[in-house]
């Protein structure tokens, strides 16, 4: 009985971002920084097709395989959604019908988004192309297919606080908003416990790669010793200090980071230099 109440989905906020005039240009910057297209564009999308958020990309995990849904501006996507519904989906991980989303969708990061950023993003996305592709059902077995249980998972593992509680400069604060929020770096770079919750005590210290061999690296100062200039250049060009070039999952990330203002790349680097160094 207690579990039923604890696992209840968050309610809608009907007056979400009231009075704010949405800024589509700003919404586009949020869309890039949050990397929506990286997961929600169709799997073999060319550069020109990356704005069609048809879904279908597979994400393997210890709990099954998840398929990104269609979030295009049509009836098979989010075309009929209201701003409060979108806001609850993105920041609380709850669908318009009150169902919990699987945390393959990084709402634990997006919960940190400013209301105006959510509103601007929604306005931008409503202008994107429409796709008719129906959602592919997730390939998740019992007991992980019980969505209500995700409510308990959220209570246990989704914390409202930022991981880095002290920020010494506005630059680091901006970096925290990008890393812990929009760019959701921790989702890949932080190890998880047996139930898939992020191990906040090991923040950004690396994790096994869920979809292929190899390891996602530790990006705390305990392992990442590149200079600020080298890191900023890497986020812009994909070139490491040894002039190797990033490949695999980081290419999509760098494509987005390269489009942000240099001050945002510098802010991300300032934050990475400020997090606890872990071996």
């Amino acid at each position, binding site marked *: 009985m207690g579990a039923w109440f604890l696992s209840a989905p968050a309610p809608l906020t009907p007056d979400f971002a009231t009075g704010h005039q949405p800024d589509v240009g700003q919404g586009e910057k949020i869309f890039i920084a949050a990397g929506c297209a990286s997961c929600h564009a169709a799997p073999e999308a060319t550069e020109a097709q990356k704005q069609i958020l048809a879904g279908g990309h597979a994400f393997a995990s210890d709990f099954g395989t998840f398929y990104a849904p269609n979030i295009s501006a049509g009836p098979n996507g989010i075309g009929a959604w209201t701003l409060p519904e979108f806001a609850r989906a993105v920041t609380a991980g709850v669908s318009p019908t009150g169902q919990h989303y699987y945390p393959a969708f990084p709402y634990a990061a997006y919960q940190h988004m400013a209301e105006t950023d959510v509103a601007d993003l929604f306005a931008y996305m409503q202008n994107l192309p429409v796709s008719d592709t129906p959602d592919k059902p997730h390939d998740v077995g019992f007991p992980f297919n019980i969505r209500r249980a995700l409510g308990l998972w959220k209570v246990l593992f989704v914390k409202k606080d930022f991981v880095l509680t002290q920020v010494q400069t506005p630059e680091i604060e901006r970096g925290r908003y990008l890393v812990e929020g929009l760019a959701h770096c921790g989702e890949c770079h932080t190890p998880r416990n047996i139930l898939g919750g992020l191990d906040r005590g090991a923040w950004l210290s690396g994790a096994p790669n869920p979809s*292929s*061999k190899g390891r996602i690296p530790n990006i705390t100062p305990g392992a990442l010793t590149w200079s600020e*200039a080298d890191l900023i*250049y890497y986020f812009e*060009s994909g*070139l490491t200090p*040894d*002039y190797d070039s*990033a490949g*695999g999952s980081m290419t999509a990330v760098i494509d987005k980071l390269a489009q942000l203002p240099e001050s945002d790349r510098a802010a991300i680097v300032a934050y990475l230099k400020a997090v606890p160094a872990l071996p």
Partner: protein
Amino acid sequence: MKAFTKSHFAIASAAALFATASVASSHATKSSNADVAARHMMMEVVAKNMGILGSTAKGEIAFNAGLVQSAAGGINMLAKIDPTSLWTEGTEQGAADLSRAKTEIWSDPAGFAQKFEDMATASAVLMGAEDLDALRAGMGPLGGACKACHESYRGPKN
């Protein structure tokens, strides 16, 4: 037969030290597969030349048109090597020591060859870079060519 003297020993160790020091740190171990080792060394040479271009772009060394031209020229020459001579059948990741080659190299040879053409095109532009602004502008497409190929045809670290 001449006796093996101290000076022979000194020369031999110097040669051995020089040989190990000249292998860049990103490939500390050499593959036992000759084709894999050869193409890894080729990429090391690309990286050395990228280093000259990148250091100039970052402002670490002064812009020198001749240096930029020869570094971009080196990358351009390597981009024109026939890739099938190095990425030979049966050397994909898992099948050959230290290889990170994805099987798409052999299932999509036209796509793979196109990546080398993109590298040749981008480096040719940089060969004509007259100033720092031109260099910086040209680094985008060249870095992008590296990234695009690695994204599709190179697997994760072993």
